[in-house]
């Protein structure tokens, strides 16, 4: 009968009756995406690329704290997507994190860890430590087996002193006095290897980081624009954005617009248009 057929349609529609609807990543479209990608590649086109930060980021531990540096270019394939993006993310008042890799991944990961660290510090009643942030990040990235493309340089000063970590997308971490990450990491590391020495002064450390990022900007296509610095010491954070505008956009020297009066006026006639109101109707807006 019609009632039972209608009921069967409703049962088919609620296939999710048996499955508990859970949050988090949903893999429903993976097979469809794979098929679409195969079809597109067969036609000769390529699917759109995710926006990466193709970056140079680095950090150095000096006498009183940590200096983090980053360039400001975000690329999308071979095109610059953002000429002045901010790659040094806030994690907690005493811990900052530079992110390289897929821009969305670094952004969301650092925001999630920042929230978790805030909740944790409220629960413990203490200022959070860099090692805590490091462990949270490494465990999350390992859980997703490198599919979250976030390569991070984490630095900060806590009650145990200044610390600097580098975190790779698969979840491995290194605790070092100076680290570089991103596509321009080799250029920056060359500068570090040449001029780093332990217990530098603040000005020397800032100059070193600035030069390392500049090396990345000028020698790597994926990095460019300005240099941002973040100097973290016990009780104070200096977020210098931009610290150095290495690539200034040129200023236009000429103008194609002609001045008033360039063309002489020979004659002038004015014809007024007489408009009369023929019909007026008011339509009330539906604000319900």
């Amino acid at each position, binding site marked *: 009968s019609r009632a039972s057929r209608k009921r069967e349609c409703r049962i088919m529609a609620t296939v999710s009756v048996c499955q508990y*609807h859970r949050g988090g990543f949903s893999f*429903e479209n993976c097979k469809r995406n794979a098929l679409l990608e195969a079809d597109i590649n067969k036609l000769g086109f390529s699917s759109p690329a995710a926006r990466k930060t193709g970056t140079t980021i680095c950090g150095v531990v000096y006498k009183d704290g940590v200096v983090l540096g980053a360039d400001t270019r975000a690329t999308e394939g071979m095109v610059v997507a953002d000429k002045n993006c901010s790659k040094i993310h806030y994690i907690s008042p005493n811990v900052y994190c530079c992110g390289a890799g897929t821009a969305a991944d670094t952004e969301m990961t650092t925001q999630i860890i920042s929230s*978790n660290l805030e909740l944790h510090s409220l629960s413990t009643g203490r200022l959070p430590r860099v090692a805590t942030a490091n*462990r949270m990040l490494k465990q999350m990235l390992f859980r997703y087996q490198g599919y979250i493309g976030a390569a991070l340089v984490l630095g900060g000063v806590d009650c145990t002193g200044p610390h600097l970590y580098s975190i790779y997308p698969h979840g491995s971490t290194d605790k070092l006095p100076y680290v570089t990450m991103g596509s321009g990491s080799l250029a920056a590391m060359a500068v570090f290897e040449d001029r780093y020495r332990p217990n530098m002064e603040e000005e020397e450390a800032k100059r070193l980081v600035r030069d390392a990022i500049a090396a990345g900007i000028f020698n790597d296509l994926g990095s460019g624009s300005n240099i941002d610095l973040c100097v973290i010491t016990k009780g104070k954070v200096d977020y210098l954005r931009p610290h150095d505008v290495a690539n200034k956009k040129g200023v236009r020297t000429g103008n194609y617009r002609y001045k008033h009066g360039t063309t002489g006026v020979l004659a002038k006639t004015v014809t007024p248009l007489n408009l009369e109101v023929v019909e007026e109707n008011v339509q009330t807006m539906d604000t319900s």
Partner: protein
Amino acid sequence: MCFVQNTRGLRSQLKDSVPVTGLCPQAGPYGVQDSLRRGFSSVKNELLPSHPLELSEKNFQLNQDKMNFNTLRNIQGLHAPLKLQMEYRAARQIQRLPFLPSSNLALDTLRGTDDTIGFEDILNDPVLSEVMGDPHIMTEYKLGVL
């Protein structure tokens, strides 16, 4: 047992063969796939996961719990995980009607996830889902009348 994952307890969980759960066709009451309720089945869909992370994500919470209980058993004895599991079972029964989203507050507090934020809170939050199961069908299914 909060955000810190028990990574050292993994050794107690490693076995020679790991059974793959959750992907094979779920047998209905007559031993075959229940087409009416779960839709049509396809061998290819069920044999391989559509993404390498799909299986590990589906069973993540379960595996974490298992590992934690194992470690707890090794440290404090069998009574500790037994008592905790009893509390979990009790907390899991505090639910709203089957078609309404439940907050699972007691379960979250027990697990320690009430002061952590993860992707399951941001992406695909069931509270913000645009579709809802048909109330009549879902309550009948829950009561076993269907």
